[in-house]
C-alpha cells in the first residue's frame, strides 16, 4: 500500500464529516425548524406546489397513512415512467433514432428508478433517447426523497413521545424535494460541466480521427443527469459504462466532486438524526461505526487490486525476472480500470458506490480481483448501512442498533432501551423481518437463477466468478444499490423479472416494517436515563454495532461467498483458470 492510497481515504472521510455536519444542520432546518437561508426563494414555490397538487400540508398523519401516501407516489411514478419509456419511438428529442424500448427493459427500468436502485439492464447511449433520459431524472429526484421520508418517520418515533402521528408526508416530501434535492443538483450540474461533462441536445458527432479512421461520438444532456444521479445516490448513468465513461467523469477532480456529492446527504442524515433526538453524540458513534467499516473495505479492496492478478502477471513477466526479483510479479490489476483514476481512487470510488449505495461505477467490477469484488458484495449484502442511500442507510443502521441493544439486553438480562424508548418484542420482530427479507430475497433468487435454464444461460464468466455475477445482481437489486458487476445478461426476461422483484422487496418489504417501528415508538413514553441504561454513544456500543452488522448482516452470506469470490481467490492464487 502507498501513502497516497491510505491518505485519500482519510482525507475523503474528513471532508465527508464536515459536509455531513453542515447538511445535517441544514436538513434539520428544512424539516423540523422550518427555517433555512433558501426560504425567501423557496417558500412561495412550496405554496404553489401544494395548490397545484391539492395538498393539505398541515394535517398530521399516522404512520399507516404516511406509508400509504408514500406508496401512492411511488406506484404512480412507476406507471407514468413505464408509459413514457414505452412511448420513446414516437416522442421527440431522439436525434440518435433510438428504437422502441423493449417491454422488459421498461418494466425493469421503471422499477429500478422508482426504488432508488438505478440498476440498468440497457446501455444508455445505445437504447435511450435524450427525452427518455430526462424522464429518468424525474425519479432520480423523487426516489431519494422517498428515502428521507422513511427516515423522518423512524426518527420521529424516537423524538416524539406518546404521539400517534409521525408528521405529514406531503410536507416532508415536497420540502425535501425543493430544499435538499433541486438546488444542489443545479449547483452540481454547473460544477460538472465546468469540469468537462457535456450538456447539449446535439446528435451524435461523426468525426474523422487523427489516425485516419471514423468515430461517432455520443452526446447529450450528460451533466444534469450525472449531477442528480450522484447527489441523490441514484447511480443510473447516462452511458453504459457510467462513471468510467470519460464524458461522465472526465478527470479525477470531477470524480472527486461526484464522490463528495454521493456522500453528502447520507452523511447529513446521521447528524439530522442526532439533532432530531437532541443528542449529537449518537451521530458521532454511528459515523465512527460506518467510517470504520468503510475504511476496512476500501483498504482491503485497494490492497488486492494493487497486487493484482497473479495468473495474468506470471503470463506477462518473464521467468528470468521472476527469479531475479520476487516483487516483479506484483503488478496492479488494470483490467476494467481507467488511467486517470489510477488504482487507488478507482477502488475508493467502487467501495463508496457500493457502501453509500449510489451505484455508478468508475470501473468494471466484473474484472476486479475476487477479493476486491467480494468487498463490493459485502457492502451491499450488509443491507446498505455503511452510509447507505438517502435516509434508508441511516434507517437500516437504526434497525441494526435496535438488534444490537436487544442482543446486549439478552446478555445482561434487562429490558433493552434505545434513545430513551423501550425496545419490546414488536420492534425487534419488525427489525428482524426487515433483515430477513433482504437476505432471503438475495439467496433465494440467486439459488433459483442457478436452478433454471434461463438463469444459467445468462451467465458470462465460467467457474465461481459466474456465481459471483448472479449474487451481485440480486445484492445490488435488493440493496437498491444498482451498481452492475456486469457479465450477466441482465436484459433477458428472466433477470429483468427477478431483479425487478428483488428491487421491490428491497425497498418495500424492507422499509415498511421499519416505518411500523417508527409508528410504534412514537406512541411510547420516554423513559428517563438511569444507572441501568446502556450508553449508545461510546466505543463499546460502536463495537457492538459493527459486530451486529457483520454477524447478522454478513455472516448469512458466508457460504455463498465461500463458493463464489473466496473459491475464485484461492484458485487464482493456485494459478487455476476456469
Amino acid at each position, binding site marked *: 500500500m502507498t501513502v*497516497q492510497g491510505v*491518505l*485519500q481515504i482519510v482525507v475523503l472521510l474528513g471532508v465527508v464529516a464536515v459536509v455531513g455536519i453542515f447538511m445535517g444542520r441544514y436538513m434539520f432546518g428544512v424539516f423540523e425548524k422550518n427555517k433555512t437561508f433558501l426560504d425567501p426563494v423557496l417558500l412561495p414555490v412550496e405554496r404553489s*406546489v401544494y395548490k397545484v*397538487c391539492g395538498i393539505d400540508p398541515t394535517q398530521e398523519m399516522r404512520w399507516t397513512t404516511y406509508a400509504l401516501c408514500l406508496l401512492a407516489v411511488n406506484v*404512480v*411514478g412507476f406507471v*407514468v415512467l413505464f408509459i413514457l419509456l414505452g412511448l420513446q419511438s414516437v416522442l421527440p428529442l431522439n436525434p440518435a433514432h433510438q428504437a422502441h424500448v423493449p417491454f422488459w427493459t421498461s418494466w425493469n427500468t421503471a422499477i429500478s428508478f422508482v426504488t432508488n436502485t438505478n440498476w440498468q439492464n440497457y*446501455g444508455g447511449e445505445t437504447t435511450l433517447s435524450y427525452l427518455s433520459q430526462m424522464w429518468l*431524472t*424525474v425519479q432520480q429526484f*423523487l426516489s431519494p426523497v422517498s428515502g428521507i421520508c422513511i427516515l423522518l418517520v423512524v426518527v420521529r418515533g424516537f423524538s416524539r413521545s406518546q404521539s400517534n402521528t409521525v408528521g405529514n408526508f406531503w410536507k416532508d416530501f*415536497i420540502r425535501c424535494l425543493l430544499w435538499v434535492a*433541486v438546488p444542489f443538483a443545479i449547483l452540481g450540474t454547473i460544477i460538472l*460541466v*465546468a469540469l*468537462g461533462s*457535456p*450538456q*447539449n441536445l*446535439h446528435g*451524435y*458527432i461523426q468525426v474523422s*480521427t*487523427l*489516425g485516419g*479512421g471514423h*468515430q461517432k*461520438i*455520443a*452526446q447529450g*444532456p450528460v*451533466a*444534469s443527469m450525472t449531477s442528480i444521479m450522484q447527489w441523490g445516490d441514484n447511480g443510473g448513468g447516462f*452511458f453504459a459504462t457510467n462513471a*468510467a*465513461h*470519460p464524458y461522465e467523469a*472526465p478527470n*479525477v*477532480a470531477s470524480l472527486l466532486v461526484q464522490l463528495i456529492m454521493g456522500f453528502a446527504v447520507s452523511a447529513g442524515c446521521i447528524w439530522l438524526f442526532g439533532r432530531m433526538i437532541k443528542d449529537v453524540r449518537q451521530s458521532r458513534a454511528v459515523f465512527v461505526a460506518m467510517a470504520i467499516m468503510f475504511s476496512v473495505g476500501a483498504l482491503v479492496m485497494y490492497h488486492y487490486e494493487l497486487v493484482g492478478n497473479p*495468473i495474468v502477471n506470471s*503470463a*506477462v513477466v*518473464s521467468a528470468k*525476472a521472476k527469479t531475479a526479483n520476487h516483487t516483479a510479479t506484483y503488478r496492479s*490489476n488494470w483490467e*476494467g480500470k*481507467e*488511467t486517470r483514476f489510477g488504482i487507488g*481512487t478507482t477502488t475508493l470510488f467502487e467501495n463508496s458506490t457500493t457502501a453509500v449505495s449510489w451505484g455508478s461505477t468508475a470501473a*468494471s467490477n466484473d*474484472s476486479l480481483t475476487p477479493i476486491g469484488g467480494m468487498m463490493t458484495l459485502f457492502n451491499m449484502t450488509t443491507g446498505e448501512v455503511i452510509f447507505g442511500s438517502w435516509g434508508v442507510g441511516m434507517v437500516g443502521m437504526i434497525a441494526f442498533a435496535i438488534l444490537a441493544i436487544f442482543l446486549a439486553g439478552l446478555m445482561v438480562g434487562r429490558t433493552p432501551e434505545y434513545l430513551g424508548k423501550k425496545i419490546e418484542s414488536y420492534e425487534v420482530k419488525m427489525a428482524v423481518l426487515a433483515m430477513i427479507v433482504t437476505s432471503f430475497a438475495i439467496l433465494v433468487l440467486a439459488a433459483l437463477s442457478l436452478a433454471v435454464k434461463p438463469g444459467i444461460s445468462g451467465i458470462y*464468466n465460467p*467457474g465461481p*466468478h459466474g456465481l459471483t455475477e448472479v449474487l451481485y445482481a440480486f445484492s445490488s437489486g435488493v440493496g437498491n444499490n444498482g451498481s452492475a458487476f456486469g457479465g450477466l445478461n441482465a436484459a433477458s426476461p428472466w433477470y429483468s423479472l427477478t431483479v425487478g422483484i428483488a428491487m421491490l422487496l428491497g425497498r418495500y418489504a424492507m422499509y415498511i416494517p421499519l416505518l411500523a417501528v417508527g409508528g410504534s415508538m412514537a406512541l411510547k413514553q420516554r423513559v428517563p436515563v438511569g444507572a441501568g441504561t446502556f450508553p449508545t454513544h461510546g466505543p463499546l456500543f460502536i463495537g457492538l454495532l459493527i459486530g451486529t452488522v457483520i454477524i447478522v448482516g454478513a455472516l448469512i452470506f458466508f457460504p455463498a461467498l465461500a463458493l463464489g469470490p473466496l473459491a475464485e481467490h484461492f*484458485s*487464482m492464487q493456485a494459478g487455476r*483458470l*476456469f
Partner: protein
Amino acid sequence: MSYRVLWSSLRLVLLATVVLGLGYNLLMTGIAELAFPHQANGSLVKYNGRVVGSSLIGQQFTAAKFFHGRPSATTPPYNASASSSSNLGPTNPILVKQVEHSLSKILESNPGVTRNQVPNSLIESSASGLDPDITPTGALLQVQRVAKANHLSVNLVRQLVLSHVQARFLWVYGHSYVNVLRLNLALEKLVGRKGIGG
C-alpha cells in the same frame, strides 16, 4: 381517502415530470451552453480547421508514427457510441489470452522493449473502452518507435511526452497520465513545423 391520495400523487408526479424532467434538464443545457460552451459541446478538438475528435474520448491509433492508447473492449475498438468494458473475470482464460495478445503486439511494434517493461495498464483493457489516456510509463515506452517513424530525435519526443504529463489531483487522487490525442496532435504539429522548416 385513498382516491384523493392517488389524485394528488398523479398531479405531483406529472408536475415533477414537466418541471424536473423537461425544465431542469433544458435549463441546465441553456446555462451550460452560455457559460461553458466548449465543455457543454463535448470538448471537441480541431486540427487544421477540422474537428478530429474530443480530447476526452480515446481514439484508435495503429500507425507506428503515433502513440497508441490502451486496448479497447468496444466493437469496433474505441466505439464512442457504445461504450463497454471487457467484463472478463480474473480467472477467465480469455482474459489471459487477450493480455498475451496485446503484449506480443506491443513487443513486436516496439523493438528493444522487454516484456517486463510493459505496464499492465497498456495491455489490459479500460473500463469504458474509450480511455483517452495512458500512463507516462506507457508513453515513454513508445518513444523510440515514434521518434524513428517520424524521423525525430528520441530526446525531442521524450521531452514532448514529459511536457504532456498530467500530475495527480491534490497530490493524492488519481494517477499521472498522458492524453494520447493531445500528445499525437502536438507530435503532428512538430513534424509539420519541421517539414516546413526543411
